């Protein structure tokens, strides 16, 4: 699974992209976040407030209960500020 971080989420995790193999019990976005926080590092600070985090799976917006598959590309980022 490829996990991407943008904007201040990248600043806090310290990585822009990581290739991960979470355990099989990680079946949704919410469970992935919980697992990432357990891994330590800057992830705990990055995911401190889920209200202000947006998630995309395979480049489409999803919610925290969206199911995940091993080959998914999951991206975490704050609300967008383009235009």
């Amino acid at each position, binding site marked *: 699974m490829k996990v991407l971080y943008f904007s201040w989420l990248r600043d806090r995790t310290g990585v822009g992209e990581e290739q991960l193999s979470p355990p099989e019990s990680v079946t949704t976005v919410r469970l992935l976040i919980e697992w990432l926080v357990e891994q330590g590092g800057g992830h705990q600070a990055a995911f401190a407030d889920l209200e202000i985090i947006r998630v*995309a799976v395979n*480049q489409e917006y999803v919610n925290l209960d969206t199911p995940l598959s091993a080959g998914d590309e999951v991206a975490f980022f704050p609300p*967008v500020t383009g*235009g």
Partner: protein
Amino acid sequence: MIKVQQEDFDAGVETRKLTEGRTDIGGICSFAGLVRDMSGGESVSAMTLEHYPSMTEKMLTEIEAEAHSRWPLHDTLIIHRYGRLEPGDNIVLVVATSAHRDAAFDACRFLIDWLKTKAPFWKKEESQDGSKWVEARDSDTEAASKWDAVD
């Protein structure tokens, strides 16, 4: 048409390309967004726009397709820049052409409103106090949500 690029653009040249050789266009509406030198009362010296390339492409394609499904348009154009930009620089250009003005006006407004809340771009502003990520504005979400009710 969608262009996501680092380099500058010329709104006049880009708009002319949409009308060249055509006589069926009755109206063109465009919106250009520029880097301002002030933000929340603070002086901004530059900003850096980051994006998520594969999703940007996908979202802008979806937004453009949605505009075409809602209004009778001839063409639409979205150009969005990324990288480091300074006050006065172009950021974004949205153009809609149609036989009549109403569709062009509405589609142009819709395109920029949806882009601002859906396209994965993030601005980081530089000022004399350092640099900071720009926070999303509720007013942008409200502007985008008014199009939810439109069939």
